[in-house]
Structure formats: C-alpha cells, structure tokens
C-alpha cells in the first residue's frame, strides 16, 4: 500500500519533466532519423520516402565531403594541441596548488572557456587580421613575411584550431586537475624515495594513471570539435564577406542545406552522419575503458 503510494508520487513528479523531455529531445531525435530517409523540400506538400538515397548522394557531394574533412581536421587538431598542453599545465598547477597565485592561474586558464563565443572569436579575428592584426605586425617585426591568415585555405583552418584550442584548454585543465587530486599520494612518495625526479614520475606515473581521464577529455574535445560552428562562422568569412564560407564545417553545411536550399531530408541525413561519428567516438571510449578494467 505504502509502496504503491510512493510509486504514484514518483510517476506524478517525473511526468512533467518526462513530457518536456519527450517533446524537446526524444521526438526531434527520432524525427531526424526519420527525415533522413525522406526527400523533403520545405515548400512542397508531399514528402516521398527515398530510403538511403540521401546518404548515397552525400558520398558524392563535394561541399559535404569538404565540410567533413575540414571538421575532422579541426577536431583532431584541437585534440592534439589541447591534451598535452592541458596535462602539463594541470601538473604544474597541481604542484603549485598551495601557492597564493593558484586561484589566479586557474581563473586565467578557464576564462576563455566561459566567455561568449562570438566576442572571443572577434578578438582572434583581429589578431589574425592581415592588415590590422598584431600577429602580422609581430611577424614583420621579427622579419618573417606576413601571412594572409584568414583567407588562405590552410592557414584559416589553423586559425580555427588555435581559437578552439584556446577555448577547450581550460576545461581540459580543470578535469585533469581533478584527476591529479584523486591520484594516490603514497605512490609518488614511494617513487621519490626510489629517486625518481618530478618529470620522471609525471611520465611514468601520472600519464598512465590518468589514462581514463585522458580518454574522457579526448572524447569530449573531439565531440565538441565535430560540432564546431560559431568559430568558423566568425573567423572564416570568404572574400565576399559570407560568414563561414572559407572553411566549411559540418554544422554550417547542414544548416545551409536545410534553410538556404530547403532540403530538410538531406540536412537530416548529414545530422545522422554527425550522430554516427559521435556514437562511434563514445563507443571507442567505453571499450577502451573496459579493456583497461580487464587487464
């Protein structure tokens, strides 16, 4: 009787949240999967089922493939820059936890992660600006030829990687810092007694022991890298000033297909590709964690 009453309360309490959740999350996710199999032009009434034709078309779509390659390069570029730097900075921060400056260091590293994307991207747009930017002025000052950072196809990808890494670093440092704080102190003391130096115990103790954290941060960084949009939108306008055209990324291509070309079904199939990538990355993380648990 009592149990029944509690069950009734639980259902009643969860119902509003569940309803919202179903409406704003479950339904649109299911709709994305469904739409990806249809040809839907917003303007026309009928919506024919076309099976996997959208996906087949994606394979030959240069704009999409371009976007996929750019996005992948950006995601892995951010990963390669962020993880080692975050680990080293977190190790140093952990070493100086008790210093009076620790709070300042932590805040300074973390601020780029929380400030609004667009103003922060604007700061970098100015830094990279070919005519007005301090980066070219610096290069000129030390005698290196100036570069057309934001209009060169390769350099502009690098610019986006730098901006995204600058933003991702604070988060990674924070998670690593939690990891360092949870490592057993006794192990480090033992290593010290055996004559291991600081860098040695970092290399042989910290890095292997932090592997689960590294996996987690890597997947989070990659997933947010694959969703990159605002950064490319602001930094990579093409010569006509059209935002985001210089470096096409997945989300931009998807939104253009949906709202400029009115091909919603096709855009949904791009979203499904994004979903598959994210699921794949998460599965890799879980299977690597389990492998570790076994050994």
């Amino acid at each position: 009787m009592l149990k029944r009453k509690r069950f009734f309360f639980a259902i009643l309490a969860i119902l509003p949240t569940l309803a919202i959740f179903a409406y704003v999350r479950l339904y649109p996710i299911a709709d994305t999967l469904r739409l990806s199999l249809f040809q839907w032009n917003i303007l026309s009434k009928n919506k024919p089922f076309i099976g996997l034709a959208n996906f087949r078309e994606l394979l030959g779509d240069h704009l999409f493939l371009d976007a996929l390659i750019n996005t992948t390069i950006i995601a892995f570029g951010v990963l390669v820059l962020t993880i080692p730097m975050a680990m080293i900075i977190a190790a140093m921060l952990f070493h100086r936890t008790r210093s009076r400056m620790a709070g300042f260091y932590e805040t300074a590293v973390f601020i780029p992660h929380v400030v609004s994307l667009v103003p922060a991207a604007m700061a970098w747009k100015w830094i990279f600006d070919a005519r007005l930017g301090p980066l070219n002025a610096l290069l000129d000052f030390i005698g290196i030829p100036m570069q057309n950072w934001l209009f060169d196809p390769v350099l502009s990808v690098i610019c986006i990687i730098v901006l995204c890494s600058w933003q991702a670093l604070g988060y990674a440092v924070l998670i690593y810092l939690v990891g360092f704080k949870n490592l057993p102190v006794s192990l480090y003391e033992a290593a010290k007694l055996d004559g291991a130096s600081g860098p040695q115990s970092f290399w042989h103790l910290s890095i292997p022991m932090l592997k689960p954290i590294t996996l987690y941060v890597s997947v989070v960084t990659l997933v947010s890298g694959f969703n990159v949009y605002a950064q490319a939108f602001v930094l990579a306008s093409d010569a006509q000033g059209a935002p985001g055209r210089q470096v096409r990324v997945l989300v931009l291509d998807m939104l253009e297909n949906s709202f400029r070309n009115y091909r919603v079904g096709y855009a949904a199939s791009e979203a499904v590709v994004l979903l598959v990538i994210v699921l794949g990355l998460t599965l890799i993380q879980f299977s690597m964690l389990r492998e570790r648990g076994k050994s």
Partner: protein
Amino acid sequence: MTFETMRHTEQTAEELAEGVRLRRRKKLTNLAIDIFLLSVSVLMLLPLVLLVANAFKTPAEMLAWPPTIVPGDPTLDNFKAVLSETPLLRWIGNSIAFAVMSTIAIVATSAIAGYVFGKFRFATMNVLFALFLATAIVPFEVYMIPLYFQAKSLGILNSVWGLLLGYLVMSFGIFLIRQNVIHSIPDELLEAARIDGAGEFWIFFRIVLPLLRGALGALAVLAFFQAWTAFAWPMIVTTTRSSYTIEVGLALFQTGFTVDLGRLSAASATVLIPSILLFVILRRNFVQGVASTGLKE
C-alpha cells in the same frame, strides 16, 4: 619545523650542505613553474585584454605596434557609435531573459527528476533514467532542425519562448542531481519524515531541496552560461533584428562591410566585461559543477 632542526643537528656538515642545496633547487623549480604558469595565464588572457583595450582606443592608436594595453587617449566614441547603430542593449536583454528562464527550467526539471531517479528505484524509473542517459550523448546540433519545425508550428519563432524550447532540460543536470541525492541524502532521513506523517511533496520541498542547495547552485551557474553562450540554436530561431541574442547579433553585425574594428571591440567588450565579472564571482560554483562532469567513471 622543530623536528627537522633536531634531525639536522645530528647530520654531518656534508649532509647539511646537501639539504640546503636541495631546498634551493626546490625553490628554483617552484620559481620556474610559477614563471611558466604566469606566462600561460597572460597568454590566455591577452586576446581578451587587448580586445577590451581596443574598445577605448582611437582608430590611430589601434594600429600601433606594439599594441598598447592601456589606451593613451581613452575615448568612449566606439561605445556611443555601437549603441546608436545597433540595439545592443536589447540583445543583451534578450540573452539575459533567455539564460535566466533556461536556468530556472533546467534547475527545476533536474531537481525533481534527479530526486526521483535517486530515491525511487522502481524498475520503471530505472528504464526512464537509462533513456535520459542514452540521449545525453546526442549533440544538440543533431536534432535542432526538427526542433526548429516544432517551434515554428508552435508559433514561437523570434521570441524568447522559441529560444527556451531548446534549453528546457539538461541530461547532465539530472545526472548531477541524482549523484548528489544518492551521496548526500540518507534514506533514514526520508523514512523518519514519512513515519512522522510527512507527505512526499512536503519532504521534497522542505528536506530534499535545502540539502541540494550546493549542487543546484553549481548547476544553475552551468545552465546560465550554457544559454548565455548558445549560438547555433539562437541563430536559426531568431531572424528578426529585435529578437537576436547578443551572440547572434554580434556575429551578424561583424559581417557588415562598413563596420570598423573599434565598434566591434566596443560591442564585444560590453558583453565580455559583465560575463567575466560574473564568472569570477561565481567561479567556485562553476568549477564544482564542471569538475563533477569529469567524475562520471
């Protein structure tokens, strides 16, 4: 300290010298680490500092090399120009309204769902929780196009309600509160209240919520910043100039050909300064919230 000096008296002169050398080396290492961390911090902050500085500069000074941190001839012209050309304050107002409402919605839904999933372990509830968790890894960008059509059919495009639709629930928030409920609210406490005849609603509002204050605070800060920095969703939901959030407004403003650097910097600074201040004030909450995301395993 006394223990150490006592030990040292028994050491030979050689060992003493060794100890001094080691301590000096440690000090030098710490100094080197401090210098490293200080330069990292400065590099991280420099782009933002320069941007804010640019906002107060005259066009001539902005081109100076090396760039000045403190403007030699500070001016408010850039701010005046931006405020007269764009509805900047309106955009900031939209962003604040959106972020506050999203925070309230996320805190409310997470508190209730987290409590139910944490303390009512019926099979049905476990299935529902698994459902919430499983969809947590699906990025917003994947399902925002269908969600846009839902907002459209509700007739709430170009409004705060439309913005809110995408930011009503947060899987991670439910997860965070559930963890807190399990770890910090003992079953005995709830049972005792039930034996005393307290109703379930009374227990939730009078016992559970006060105990969750810390976790809800951390979640609120996370939710606020998440909405405040949202970009893709506001970008598609708002298409009229008066309904933009600050992120969308600025992103579209900067694509204009006639817009100069001073005005862009002024507009950016207007947004950056309050959000940095807010972050510095709420840093502890924020760090607590973000740090708990890494503790999933």
